């Protein structure tokens, strides 16, 4: 589950990680009020207004703006709130902005130059350990840094028995070229960040940029925070931060039926039991000349109710020209699934696109007879290859 910047920052703050302070606003008036409060506290007339959506690259799409007065904060918030923000990560339709974070300006002039770094904590799958990945090249796309200047990406692997050790925090500060007060501040920043990571069952915390201010403080200016879905059962406070406006409404509805659905851009819908087989079925659709319109894993319970829900969800997409159902019946019996498919088709009435049902495994032959005798215009297949050929036929 992904969090908004403002949510991530509030968590960091609760772990004593210094952040660029800000106040959330849902209307221009609230934004002005927020700016007045920040002005009173920090004495500056400069503010940064940041759109709160679950996507990176917000600045590129006009979702992050500098305001030079409280009045300008209102004007900018008015423009950003309600806009469809398009960034390199949102797709062409963009995402609607419902909230902005009005933040203090932390790039004020002072005794030294400001500097921006990149710091993230995530799982290293090879070692099965968490790793702090960091770079002195902050504020830009880290994948580009990794490609062009791989020697500027550093890693500290964390031993789960002892956690992030002080010498590792020092190593990070040395590699980032810090000294003096900023070096010391990093020794507080890093342990706090790691505690926040563990304490929230995060799967990723990415801070880009981490800022060294002109008065040598270390602050998190942005924050990408993602929580391990499997651990939400023991993180009720964080689970309640879920923002359903950021999720696809169809995917949420599918979840209610325990269907794992992901919308794609193709023309052949599919419904499969098991994630691996679902991906393989999508691949087969592609090799047969189509394009998968979705990923849909019905899990262990492929019955009339789930199949019907699956049909209805797939059929919402007008570009779907055919549907392939692929169920490998192990514990689930294929004849039951076949009855479920027949019931679902009858209940929906007019399925306007061809349906290919491929059932294999326990009682597959009986299942084919049920489908063939149903009187429905449904193609049945037993082998994976037959199913592929059927898809080819209906697309031509």
């Amino acid at each position, binding site marked *: 589950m992904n969090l908004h910047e403002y949510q991530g920052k509030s968590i960091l703050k609760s772990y004593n990680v210094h952040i660029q302070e800000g106040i959330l606003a849902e209307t221009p008036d609230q934004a002005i009020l927020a700016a007045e409060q920040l002005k009173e506290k920090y004495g500056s007339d400069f503010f940064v207004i940041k759109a709160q959506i679950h996507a990176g690259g917000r600045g590129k799409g006009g979702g992050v703006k500098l305001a030079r007065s409280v009045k300008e904060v209102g004007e900018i918030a008015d423009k950003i709130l309600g806009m469809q923000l398009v960034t390199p990560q949102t797709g062409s339709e963009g995402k609607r902005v419902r909230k902005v974070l009005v933040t203090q300006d932390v790039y004020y002039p002072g005794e030294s130059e400001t500097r921006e770094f990149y710091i993230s904590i995530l*799982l290293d*799958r*090879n070692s*099965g*350990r*968490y790793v702090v990945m960091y770079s002195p090249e902050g504020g830009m796309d880290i*994948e580009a840094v990794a490609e062009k200047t791989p020697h500027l990406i550093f890693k500290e692997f964390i*031993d*789960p*028995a002892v956690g992030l050790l002080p010498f590792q925090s020092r190593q990070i500060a040395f590699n980032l070229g810090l000294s003096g007060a900023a070096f010391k501040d990093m020794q507080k920043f890093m342990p706090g960040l790691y505690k926040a990571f*563990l304490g929230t*069952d995060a*799967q990723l915390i990415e801070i880009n940029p981490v800022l060294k201010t002109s008065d040598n403080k270390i602050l998190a200016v942005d924050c990408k925070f993602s929580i*391990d*879905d*499997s*651990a939400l*059962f*023991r993180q009720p406070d964080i689970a309640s931060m879920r923002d359903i406006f950021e999720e696809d409404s169809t995917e949420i509805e599918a979840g209610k039926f325990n269907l*794992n659905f*992901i919308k*794609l851009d*193709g023309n052949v819908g599919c419904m*499969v*039991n*098991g*994630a*691996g*087989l*679902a*991906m*393989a*079925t*999508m*691949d*087969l*659709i*592609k*090799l047969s000349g189509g*394009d*998968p319109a979705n*990923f849909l*894993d019905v899990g262990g319970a492929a019955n009339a109710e789930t199949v019907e829900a699956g049909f209805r969800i797939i059929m919402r997409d007008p570009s779907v020209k055919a549907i392939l159902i692929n169920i*490998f*019946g*192990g*514990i689930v019996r294929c004849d039951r699934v076949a009855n479920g498919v027949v019931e679902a088709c009858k209940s929906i009435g007019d399925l306007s696109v061809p349906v290919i049902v491929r059932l*294999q*495994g*326990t009682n597959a032959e009986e299942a084919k007879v049920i489908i063939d005798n149903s009187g429905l215009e449904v193609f049945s297949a037993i*082998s*994976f*290859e037959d*199913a*592929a050929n059927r898809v080819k036929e209906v697309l031509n």
Partner: protein
Amino acid sequence: MSVLLNKDSKIIVQGFTGSEGTFHAQQMIEYGSDIVGGVTPGKGGQRHLGLPVFNSVSDAVKKTSADVSVIFVPPPFAADAIMEAADAGIKLIITITEGIPVSDMVKVKDYLKDKDCRLIGPNCPGIITPDEAKVGIMPGFIHKKGGVGIISRSGTLTYEAVDQVSRLGLGQSTCIGIGGDPIVGTTTLDAVKLMMSDDETEAIIIIGEIGGNMETDAAYWIKENRTKPVIGFIAGQTAPKGRRMGHAGAIIGGKADTAEAKMAIMKECGIHVVESPADIGKTVAEALK
């Protein structure tokens, strides 16, 4: 010889009296697996499915000499169950449970590093050596004794591969479901090494997925050490970047963990790479000619 599991394996079920544990224990017993008892804390001394229930794995091991455990314990308690099995001296721990928090598995992996045991899974269908023992949730009847070893990150897609192999009259030596999570106890490479040194295994099928680099690690080892044909398939050729495709481990992070990149490296390393999931069986049959 088979890999990891044979007719002499003595098996206990952790989470024995729960609905999943009960159903699958019954299926395993029907298949002929030597289930010698189970563990449900607090229900020690009772009998379930005609077998003894123990309060702890250590009690079960003392009384039954079990050397294999299969875990159906729910996600919040599964990591503890794995470590308990390791502490009790179980040699092969097969974890079926799906949805164990990653941070729990980080601890488990660290805990197991000095223990003399092997973890399979979590989030996997289990292991089967046809006609000898089935420890997991796979449908037994699609399997057939033979010489093809199968290693897979997925459940139903493994059954698909097994079925294709069986229908061509070939059979399987052992099928290992290694699991679909970011941290698994036994990697593709670990399983390949076991199969490569097993006399009964004549060919190996690797069913991989997008995400991580387990398949490419195995491929580089196979290039140097191959003594029998290896066939590979990677699911997710059409998966979009950054979207998690069902399994917690199946997400494209960078350029190297796409299906395309993995398949290219596997080809370079002398693996017969199958483009279509419908051709897995056929390709094995040809490779064995």
